[in-house]
């Protein structure tokens, strides 16, 4: 019974830490941005660069942009992947799109940044971008015959032209401003503008009760639930309840509950941006520069959103709500489970397996990533758990590159579009590139100079190209024989 309680406490403690103010300040705007991208960016504004006649220097970056801006869920990833492959720019850009989408989208990027640090998010973005293009080009070289066979197909799908409207651009930019104002750890955002005291006598007792409910071990890097955290959790529950009434049929128009839900969302962001300190004579509220900046940016969002036509903002809110239903619920469950599992893993195991940045540790991380399937974004708390347990950051990046790219589900999906031999080649390349990425980032973390890492990258790519050249030569020799 005692150990069961310990596990439940682990889960609850983890959940509390993840619903903390700084995570919500990043996650809530990220959901709104993801919804806006899906609903307000016309797909044709990017896909028009992905037609068959587009040159490589256009189609590969366009494929990466499509992965980053258009693909937050499988509803877009699968049809767009199949479309680019069969009717558009071909196998290479399709692979680049597929590889970059799970790492380059706004939700993954913002969430990785807020949990694992901005530097890590940047490393994930840059390496996934470079290697996504690299793997795409290698696949295109490897299976060049295949693209030739698709030339008979029409590429009418990619000839439609469209551009993003000014109101949609305004909404997207001001949402990004909310995200930046909420997450950046810089003066004057962190400065306190003024404080006042709310005379709530029971607030200190409430804090003591919260610490009693969710005990935590500060030495292990765990966080307890603060008064602010409990307020935010209540607000989130209220948003959930009102959004169910207000957003489920938003396509047909807004109702009273829609505005309540949106008002509560604004309140949540503002509460997360201020500082609340419980004391003997009440709750001390510190107004921060962050709260002012978030408020200003939210006002800008509102101002821009009023210029959208009714269909556009309804579609936007629907997509946001759909992502929340689809991702947030699983994420909350995932974070709880991760907290439970963490109690069961001995740090020594992780330390022995992946505590160093060597080939074996990176390979183990990649194999784990391939065989484990976590719902969207849950890979991030899993990675955080490994980091806490002593995993080296190099293998951690290798895991984070392999896990969302390669799961049994995604491998089956890819196989049904491009066939088995190409899928095996893709899986092999992703594994090799992930290990290389882990080794390089790990070396960077360990303080190895940029020149050596560049030399390592060049040697890796060089040997890969040599291997492929040899394979192609052999195949052609076989074909002639």
């Amino acid at each position: 019974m005692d150990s069961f309680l310990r596990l439940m406490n682990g889960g609850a403690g983890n959940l509390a830490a993840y619903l903390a103010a700084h995570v919500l300040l990043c996650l809530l705007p990220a959901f709104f941005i993801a919804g806006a991208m899906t609903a307000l960016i016309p797909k044709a504004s990017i896909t028009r660069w992905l037609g068959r006649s587009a040159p490589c220097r256009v189609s590969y970056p366009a494929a990466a942009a499509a992965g980053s801006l258009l693909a937050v869920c499988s509803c877009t990833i699968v049809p767009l992947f199949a479309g680019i492959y069969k009717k558009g720019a071909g196998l290479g850009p399709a692979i680049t799109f597929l590889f970059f989408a799970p790492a380059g989208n706004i939700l993954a990027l913002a969430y990785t940044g807020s949990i694992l640090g901005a530097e890590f998010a940047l490393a994930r973005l840059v390496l996934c971008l470079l290697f996504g293009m690299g793997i795409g080009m290698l696949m295109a070289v490897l299976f060049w015959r295949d693209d030739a066979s698709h030339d008979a197909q029409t590429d009418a799908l990619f000839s439609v032209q469209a551009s993003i409207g000014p109101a949609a651009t305004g909404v997207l930019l001001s949402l990004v401003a909310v995200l930046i104002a909420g997450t950046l750890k810089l003066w004057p955002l962190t400065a306190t503008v003024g404080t006042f005291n709310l005379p709530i006598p029971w607030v200190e007792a409430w804090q003591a009760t919260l610490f009693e409910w969710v005990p935590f071990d500060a030495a292990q890097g765990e966080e307890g639930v603060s008064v602010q955290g409990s307020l935010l959790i209540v607000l989130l529950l209220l948003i959930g309840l009102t959004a169910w009434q207000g957003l489920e049929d938003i396509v047909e128009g807004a109702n009273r509950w829609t505005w309540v839900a949106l008002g509560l969302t604004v309140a949540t962001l503002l509460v997360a941006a201020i500082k609340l300190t419980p004391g003997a004579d009440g709750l001390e509220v510190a107004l921060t520069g962050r709260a002012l900046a978030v408020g200003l940016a939210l006002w800008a969002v509102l101002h821009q959103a009023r210029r959208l036509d009714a269909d556009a903002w309804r579609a936007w809110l629907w997509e946001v709500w759909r992502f929340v239903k689809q991702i947030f619920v699983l994420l909350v469950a995932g974070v709880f489970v991760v907290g439970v599992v963490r109690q069961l893993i001995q740090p020594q195991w992780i330390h022995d397996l992946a505590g160093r940045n060597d080939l074996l540790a990176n390979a183990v991380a990649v194999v784990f990533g391939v065989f484990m399937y976590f719902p969207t974004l849950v890979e991030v708390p899993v990675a955080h758990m490994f980091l806490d347990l002593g995993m080296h950051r190099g293998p951690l990046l290798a895991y984070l590159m392999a896990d969302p790219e390669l799961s049994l589900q995604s491998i089956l999906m890819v196989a049904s579009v491009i066939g088995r031999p190409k899928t095996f080649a893709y899986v092999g390349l992703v594994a090799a590139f992930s290990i290389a990425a882990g080794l390089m980032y790990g070396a960077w973390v360990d303080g190895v100079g940029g020149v050596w890492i560049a030399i390592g990258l060049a040697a890796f790519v060089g040997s890969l190209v040599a291997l492929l050249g040899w394979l192609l030569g052999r195949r052609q020799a076989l074909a002639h024989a």
Partner: protein
Amino acid sequence: MKTVKILGSGCANCRKLEAAAREAASSAGVEADFVKVSDLKAIMAYDLLATPGLVIDDKLVSSGRIPTQAEIRQWLAG
């Protein structure tokens, strides 16, 4: 008799679209046959960049979003 196809792999939006299409058909008094298409190859036979797709009498009328009741009724009448 109309044939209405819902293209999609069974995600939340596809279920929502099917419900919307059924509601529109019954409110407009149009008799329609509903077919769910979840096979990727069959879906990609139509030119769409995002699911769910709505196909009425073999013509793709919308993709990647949930149309309003008024829109669907108009397509069903056409």
